[in-house]
């Protein structure tokens, strides 16, 4: 019953978010600010995670494929497929659900408890649209770039570890990266990323927007936002994979 209440209220909230904005000219600047806040400021953590993720995938794949009849370039192939299909779009989105999602829920929740959202409503501003729509648009625009960077850095991390440790010959790794490449895998990853960006921002904003109480409740909203958006990402991941790859 509780979950049905939240689902209903979430869609009602989306109706408000996509309702008529007051001054569309102001939204452009707000979107750019959010691109910086949600995207550019996440670049560091995404880069760091991606390089190490790529390195670890390469080492694990190489250490698990030691049969003589399996060509060594399979390590590069597996690393590429794992990174493009799953690790970059899904794992990085889950990380962003933690970083960006909690940030959005805390920011919007604090605005709610400090009556700033009431102030917007009383002025006649569509507060949900003014506060949330730029975040959703910004994340849907910038996250694909973050994920492409993540893919590149993960693969680079794998190459670096192959060069430094010799767990697989760099030439074999590069051959594997190029072997049987299907560009649709990137398209699939980017479609997932855009959907996940929408989920992260809208679910987190929903929890922040409906915060009641004080600092404790803001913290609780932030946690709930991360849990809910992570669960929705996992469900959406399964559904999109079923629809797009099967």
């Amino acid at each position, binding site marked *: 019953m509780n979950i049905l209440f939240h689902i209903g209220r979430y869609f009602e909230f989306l109706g408000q978010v996509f309702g008529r904005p007051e001054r569309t000219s*102001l939204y452009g600047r707000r979107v750019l600010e959010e691109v910086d806040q949600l995207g550019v400021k996440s670049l560091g953590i995404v880069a760091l995670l991606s390089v190490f993720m790529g390195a670890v995938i390469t080492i694990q794949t190489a250490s698990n494929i030691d049969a003589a009849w399996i060509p060594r370039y399979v390590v590069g192939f597996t690393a590429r497929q794992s990174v493009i299909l799953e690790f970059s779009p899904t794992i990085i989105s889950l990380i962003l659900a933690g970083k960006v999602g909690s940030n959005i829920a805390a920011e919007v929740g604090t605005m709610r408890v*400090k*009556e*700033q959202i*009431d*102030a917007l*409503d*009383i*002025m*006649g501003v569509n507060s949900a649209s003014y506060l949330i729509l730029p975040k959703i648009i910004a994340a849907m625009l910038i996250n694909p770039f973050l994920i492409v960077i993540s893919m590149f850095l993960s693969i680079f991390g794998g190459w670096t570890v192959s060069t430094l440790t010799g767990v697989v010959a760099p030439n074999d790794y590069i051959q594997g990266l190029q072997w049987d490449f299907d560009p649709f895998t990137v398209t699939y990853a980017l479609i997932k990323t855009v959907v996940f960006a929408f989920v992260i921002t809208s679910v987190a904003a929903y929890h922040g927007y409906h915060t009641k109480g004080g600092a404790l409740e803001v913290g609780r909203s932030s946690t709930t936002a991360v849990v809910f958006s992570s669960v929705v990402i996992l469900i959406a991941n399964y559904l999109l994979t079923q629809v797009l790859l099967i």
Partner: protein
Amino acid sequence: MIEVIGLSKRFGSAQVLTDITATFAKGVVNQVIGKSGSGKSVLAKCIVGLHRPDSGRVLYDGRPFHELDLGEKRVIRQEIGMLFQSSALFDSMTVLDNVMFPLRMFAGMTASAMVKRARFCLERVNIVDKDGLYPAELSGGMQKRVGIARAIAMNPKYLFCDEPNSGLDPQTSILIDELIKEITEEYGTTTIVITHDMNSVIETGQNILFLHTGRCWWTGDRKALLASENEELKAFVFASELMRQARRGLLGEA
């Protein structure tokens, strides 16, 4: 003028407001007083449209707010200025940007005209030299002043102040009260002040509404308040010995 007619509101099983009828006159400071939990804030939120009443009407110069469509409500909302208890300034904006915010959204003015208007409002509340600071860098009293400047930026017809003196020292409280009174008289706004501050009520009360257990219990001005024999009102307003002495002094009793 704002008229509230037969307004009732309940949350779940709790009846918060029951059949409130009141008139808030133009050009005077109308004060709503009552104990914590008596329904003052809920009444204010019903009047400004943040809560929908279960029954009753709110008329803004004859316009029934809750019966209007979204566009018509938006017009009235742009005529409302509100000072919140927490000031509700936007943390990410400077003082100047906070005051300019409603102008940016609705006024359709040039950038220079907006800055001029915002500076005028800040000057009106004597805080123009702080326009580049962020809300977190201001004291509570300064935040209230900026809140008032933002509330009057659009030349509101209706001004709402929720606990304008809460958290302020007595001197700053008096300054804020005087400012609200001056602005009300200068611009002819219909001002509604929700307050707990009995000093403020006795000093400036022109039209006082006392809420008790969610009902409109008593109305009158400061003179009538001092002379009232209403037990609940007396128990609330003159709760302290100091206030009882003040009452006796003001009534000229021995």
